[in-house]
């Protein structure tokens, strides 16, 4: 039975995704309960898979009974089980937010479940072309979700996201074509075995690496191919911003790690130092440019979006260094960032509904007007900066440790500077929320913010929404001290990946 869990993790949300549309024929309130049931089931399955992987080791499944490398193989190791569990838990949590925050159409919940199916598929697949298909399923669902709100500007942002995202996915597909031409196989494990035979310095392999990494960089939203991301995050409905900021780029970064370590392997990075250097430079530039752009924003959600560009720079830097500590740090920061950024976007939604504030100036004196949301925002912001014992600190600590051990001193400087840069935009927010007087109600900035906030029917804030925000803040702090335990659990996987 446990052998079938990897495929059930994909089948469950896809099948459940069809139900809200069918149920929509009789009732327009059925979408949410169906999604909750499916996500509870998904969380259970992901937990079971995690337990099985931790006790029994890697689980693989041959789709349709065709043996790998000819058939499609699904592989669950410690890494993919952890990301699958993250997807299930975050998607379940955000549903608590969606109930009041909307959108409530049945089609929204179908897309929601389709997104979960795509993300989980990317996580457990062991086949590079299958990864492309799930990448596009994720993309399609994400484009439609961004446009699912009432704001017309969201459609423009979604179309931009679609066009840029499709170019990214197409570049990835082209890279897969080069790999297929070089080796004649699509299975990740088989590719890892056959690439050395072709030769790591062959033009085909190098071009494939550049195209695949470039394509995934678009999906991760690294500078300078991040342009789709701020508009998409800032114009999407708040629940969608929380979901996709937490998961979509995260799983793309996971896919990048999977390609780096399971297909090209560390041997490739050692044999072709220029590939490693290029990746490190892109990551470092992303860290700095993302932070600088974040500091210069006036809209809180845009600031958070640019912050993601910077934080994913950190994660990719950890992967590029490719020492055990750096990879563990990158994974911890990947999971931690998902919780923190999802929580921050959820908090901005609560604040907008409570006070109408969407701009950084609008957050003046927020602690008096929305104390719980302001408190959670502050905790999450400080966790992101890297104040111990929160998870943001642990992730960055491991990445820096790994970079020092790997001898990447230039990167160490960038990583330490990035903490200061993160502080530059988040400390300003905390200062404004707690130590600045609330704006005069007649102040034009605040009324402008109200007008921008738009829809009065969106106004109610449910306890569930606040609970999601507070829970994210608590998890962000509580995850930090548990990292050594998690590290022990995925240690075997990391060793295998970095062989």
């Amino acid at each position, binding site marked *: 039975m446990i052998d079938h869990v990897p495929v059930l993790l994909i089948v469950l949300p896809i099948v459940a995704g069809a139900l809200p549309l069918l149920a929509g024929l009789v009732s327009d309130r059925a979408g949410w309960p169906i999604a909750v049931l499916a996500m509870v089931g998904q969380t259970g399955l992901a937990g079971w898979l995690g337990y099985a992987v931790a006790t029994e080791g890697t689980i693989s499944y041959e789709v349709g009974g065709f043996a790998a490398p000819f058939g499609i193989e699904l592989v669950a190791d410690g890494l993919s089980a952890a990301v699958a569990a993250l997807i299930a838990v975050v998607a379940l949590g955000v549903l608590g937010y969606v109930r009041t925050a909307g959108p409530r159409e049945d089609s929204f919940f179908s897309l929601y479940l389709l997104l979960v199916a795509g993300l989980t598929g990317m996580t457990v697949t062991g086949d590079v*072309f299958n990864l*492309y*298909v799930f990448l*596009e399923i994720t*993309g*399609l669902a994400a*484009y*439609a979700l961004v*446009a699912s709100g009432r704001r*017309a*500007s969201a*459609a*423009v942002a*979604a*179309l931009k996201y*679609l*066009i840029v995202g*499709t*170019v990214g996915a*197409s570049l990835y*597909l*082209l890279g897969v*074509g080069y790999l*297929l*031409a070089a080796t*004649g196989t*699509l299975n990740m494990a088989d590719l890892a075995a056959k690439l050395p035979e072709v030769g790591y310095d062959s033009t085909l392999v190098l071009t494939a690496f550049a195209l695949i990494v470039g394509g995934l960089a678009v999906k991760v939203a690294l500078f300078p191919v991040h342009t789709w991301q701020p508009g998409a995050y800032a114009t999407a409905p708040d629940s969608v911003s929380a979901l996709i900021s937490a998961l979509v780029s995260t799983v793309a970064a996971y896919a990048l790690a999977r390609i780096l370590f399971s297909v090209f392997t560390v041997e490739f990075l050692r044999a072709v130092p220029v590939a490693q250097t290029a990746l490190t430079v892109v990551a470092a530039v992303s860290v700095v440019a993302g932070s600088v752009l974040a500091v210069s924003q006036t809209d809180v959600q845009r600031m958070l979006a640019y912050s993601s560009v910077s934080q994913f720079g950190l994660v990719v830097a950890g992967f590029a260094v490719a020492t055990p500590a750096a990879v563990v740090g990158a994974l911890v920061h990947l999971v931690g960032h998902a919780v923190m950024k999802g929580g921050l976007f959820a908090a901005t939604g609560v604040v907008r509904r409570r006070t109408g504030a969407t701009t950084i100036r609008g957050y003046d004196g927020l602690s008096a007007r929305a104390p719980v949301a302001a408190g959670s925002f502050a905790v999450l912001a400080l966790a992101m900066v890297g104040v111990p014992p929160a998870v943001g600190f642990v992730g960055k600590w491991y990445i820096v440790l790994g970079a020092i051990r790997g001898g990447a001193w230039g990167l160490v400087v960038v990583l330490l500077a990035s903490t200061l840069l993160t502080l530059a935009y988040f400390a300003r927010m905390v200062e404004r929320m707690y130590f600045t007087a609330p704006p005069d109600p007649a102040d034009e900035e605040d009324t402008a913010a109200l007008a921008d906030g738009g829809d009065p029917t969106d106004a109610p804030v449910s306890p569930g929404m606040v609970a999601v925000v507070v829970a994210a803040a608590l998890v962000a702090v509580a995850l930090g001290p548990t990292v050594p335990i998690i590290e022990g659990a995925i240690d075997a996987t990391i060793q295998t990946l970095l062989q």
Partner: protein
Amino acid sequence: MIDLLLTRYNYVAVVLLLGIGIYMLVDNRNLVKKVIGMNVFQTAIFLFFITTAYVEGGSPAIVGYGGDGPFVSPLPHVLILTAIVVGVSLTAVALALVVRIYSEYGTLDEEVLRQLYD
């Protein structure tokens, strides 16, 4: 060089289509034409896959038709069939968004939209 162009003209077409697609997608102000550019870009990749599958003098990999080889690789054809389906779905979503944008703003000009947007 001329020899290369004459024997590898499919790959030349791939490069040209990739370039034309990206150029339309980046430079054209009309959103529908951007979507067309995206399609041209993807078509170039489809052509690339199909070209890599070709074997000089190869027969189709169908039992009872090809004799005993060499065979044309059937795998890229199957992959591209999937990729075409993905491409059609993407185009459908893109055009749905274009319809929504036009009904909201009454224009498909990116520059005009950018001014309305900010």
